[in-house]
Every structure is written in structure tokens, then in C-alpha cells.
């Protein structure tokens, strides 16, 4: 398994190939439905958006977190959520923030893949439901924005160590492993 060190630069992102299995060490930020909605709304309204999103590794994840008596947060379970829910918001999100990698599950639309190609971004498929293993990779909580969105929807900041396994499922050329599998599935089913 190859280790990627975040923040990622465009060149290293563009060198990744479909099907590569990697892990990430370095900062990663969570964002699901509500983070996307609010970030884009704030941009429209000219309000400030957390700087950390710039060229970030974005994790489609709504973790289970616990706070100890001193107010220190730690992560209990944190697998990927279904990325397709963000399909309509993601192309603009990628372009605005120059997102370098998205970690999620289930894949994303053609429009998202186009934005990835343009900006230099990859989609990394995490194993859905493997929440305890991924929580181990999210070794430290370094911050949180938009706490009012609630535990799963907030923008959590993590320092990761060997967060993986992650499969390069959409590369920076817009090729999609999901499309390839779908073609194969259609062919297999037509033979039945």
C-alpha cells in the first residue's frame, strides 16, 4: 500500500492510477451534505468559509465522536458515507476550493469526474462500514468548524496516520472504476 502525504499537490494527485491502493497521512477534513450546502451558500453571500478547505483532502464522513471532561474530542467510529448524495454540489465545491482528493464510498457522477479532471483531484474509495479501522487512522482531532450542524454534519479536522485502505476509483483524468465495473456488469447480465 502506497502512502500519500497530505496536503497533496496537483502533480502527485495526477500521478495516481485507477485501482491503486493507497493510504493517507496528514490533514483530512470531513464534510457531508450540510458542509457542502453551507460552504457554497456562504460563498454566494460573501461570508467567510473555513480556510482549511483550500486544496484539502475531503472525507465524506459523519463520525461518532466523544468529548471527555476536559472538552477534548476523540473519534469512536468513522467510515465513509455515500458520496452520490453530494453529486449536485460537488463539482462547484471542487472548483471553488481546489479539492485534491475526496474519500467516500459508492462513487460520484460524471459531472464530478469532469471537475476532478479539470482541477486535479482524485476520488478515493474507502471500504464502507469499516468505521473502527478508519477511526484508528484518524489519529488526532485538530479542530472543528460549524459545530451547530451537529456531530455527524460538522466540519471536523483530523491529523491522520495511514488512513486506509483507499482505492483510486476516479483518477484525475476523469476515468472511473465504477464506470468500468458497470460496463462489465451490463455485459455479464446480458449473457444470462
Amino acid at each position, binding site marked *: 500500500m502506497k502512502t500519500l502525504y497530505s496536503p497533496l499537490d496537483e502533480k502527485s494527485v495526477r500521478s495516481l492510477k485507477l485501482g491503486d491502493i493507497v493510504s493517507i497521512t496528514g490533514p483530512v477534513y470531513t464534510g457531508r451534505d450540510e458542509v457542502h450546502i453551507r460552504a457554497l451558500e456562504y460563498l454566494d453571500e460573501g461570508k467567510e468559509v473555513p480556510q482549511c478547505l483550500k486544496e484539502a483532502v475531503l472525507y465524506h464522513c459523519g463520525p*461518532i465522536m466523544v468529548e471527555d471532561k476536559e472538552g477534548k474530542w476523540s473519534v469512536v467510529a468513522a467510515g465513509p*458515507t455515500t458520496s*452520490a448524495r453530494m453529486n449536485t454540489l460537488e463539482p462547484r465545491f471542487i472548483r471553488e476550493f481546489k479539492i485534491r482528493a475526496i474519500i467516500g464510498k*459508492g462513487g460520484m457522477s460524471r459531472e464530478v469526474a469532469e471537475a476532478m479532471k479539470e482541477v486535479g483531484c482524485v476520488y478515493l474509495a474507502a471500504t*464502507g462500514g469499516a468505521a473502527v*479501522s478508519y477511526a484508528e487512522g484518524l489519529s488526532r482531532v485538530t479542530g472543528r468548524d460549524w459545530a451547530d450542524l451537529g456531530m455527524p454534519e460538522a466540519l471536523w479536522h483530523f491529523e491522520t496516520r495511514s488512513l486506509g485502505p483507499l482505492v483510486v476509483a476516479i483518477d484525475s483524468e476523469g476515468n472511473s472504476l*465504477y464506470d468500468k465495473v*458497470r460496463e462489465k456488469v451490463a455485459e*455479464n447480465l446480458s449473457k*444470462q
Partner: protein
Amino acid sequence: MSPSDSMVVKLPEPTEKIIENLLRVANTKIPEDIGWALEAAAGWETNPTAQAQLGAILENVRKAEHMYKPMCQDTGIPIFYVRGKFDSSIAKDITQAVENCTKSVPMRPNTVDPIIRVNSGNNLGLGMPCIHYIPTDDDFTEISVMLKGAGSENMTKLKMLNPSDGMEGVKKFIIDSVIDAGGRPCPPGIVGVGIGGTADECVAMAKRALMEPLDMEDPDPEIQALEEELFVKINSSGLGPMGLGGDTTVLGVKVRKAYCHIASLPVAVNIGCWATRRAVARITDSDIVYSQGVRL
């Protein structure tokens, strides 16, 4: 469920406590039948991406059980089935147990108002917890729970087919539903199917079917044959674990049927992800038998 996987506990134990046990076990320990099916799949997969997915699932399952942590962060909506003899106080016990376990397991606060999307913070709220009652003349009270995450639940489909569509139409609808869902419901999981009934009953059957252990055969040979046929067909698609390709798209197919109107042919699909987390307690006057699957 095999007898070896059940655990007998002597009474008394307050009902609320029993339900808390169920929620904790369901969250942290994979049902034995699903664990075996995942191990078997890992053994026969040859595709390296699929092997990596199944390996990650199995490692995660081991860690969750060992560390007593929820195996998936989407602790879902707990769906309860109460069967046998019971009275209305059971709802209060279930409600309290859900609230307690949200803190103690912990379970992610997952319930929001559907219109204003404000989270209740305790997995409760109008219409929650979700409880189905099945009163019978039996001498036991049986409480079952299934934790249903949104990744799989959002893939639910109901179609009111025409009777002339026949079983070919039914099979096509089921296969298409699983393929369209792709990687979203975290395959490989279980496909719950309802055929017949009314629209509402059809969907309820599809979900109830997921409570049944994979190694349990259907008493109706025709249904058993249909389940096997669908299992082979769906797996030969090559969709694979997480929709990334491979030989394992489903671990099992479970079908239920009910009589329907002469002019109707309802069919429903409710997918259970690999983390189809269930737990059952059957309570009699003398003891409690815990297991992780039941035919309802």
C-alpha cells in the same frame, strides 16, 4: 441461528436492560451467519480490489468486537420487532433503552425532523423508535432489533407491477434494483424481498426478511429456489464488494410472499448492507435466550 451462537441468561433482568444489551450486541458483534458468509467470500474472491474490501471489512469486524465499539459509524435507525406476549409498557422500555444507548454505546444521533432537519440528539423524536408488534399466543416475549443505516435503506424500492409482468418481471425488478444501487448500500449484503401483499405490507416483508439468518432455509421450496436463483444471478454480475468489481455482490437473498389483490403484483426490495446488525432476546418466565437472527 445455531444453538452454539445463542446465550442463555437467568432472570430476573429488567426489560430496559435487556434491550440495552441487544443494542450493544447488535452494534459491536456481527451476526455469526454474516461473519461466516464474509469469511467464505474472502476465501473465493480472486479480484485484488475485492480482496482488499473484504479484508478491510473482516479486520474492522474483529476490531469492533474486540474493542467493544460500533462496527459502523452509521448506527442506523434501530428497527424493533416485538413478538409473543407483551403489553404497552414495552414501548417505554424501548424508548429509554435507545436514549441510554445513544450515550453509552455510543450510537450516533441519527434522527432529525424531516422538514427543518434539526437533530433531536438522542435518536428519538416523533414516530421514533420504530417498533413493529406481532402479538401471538406464545408463552414468551421476543424482542428483536435491526440497525438499519441510511446507505442501504435509501436504496429501498417498491413497484406495483402488472400481474401480466409475471415472475420474469419480478426477478428483473429485483436484479435491476441491486445493480442500480451499486456500491451505495455497502455490498456485499443481503437482499430482502417482498412479493405480494399490499404496498405497505410488501415493503414491511422485504425488511422483515433481513432478520432471518442466512443459513436458514425457507420452508417453501419454491421460495428457496427463487432465492438461490437470484443469488447466483446477482453475484454473476461482477458488481462486487463496494461496487468496485468482484464475485461477491450479495451474501444472500431472502424472499417473503403474501397473497395480493387479483389486479396487483407488488414487489419490494430492501437491501441490508454487510453490516446487517441484528440481535434477538426471547424472554420466558425462567430465562432469556439471546441470539442474532430470527425468522419473523
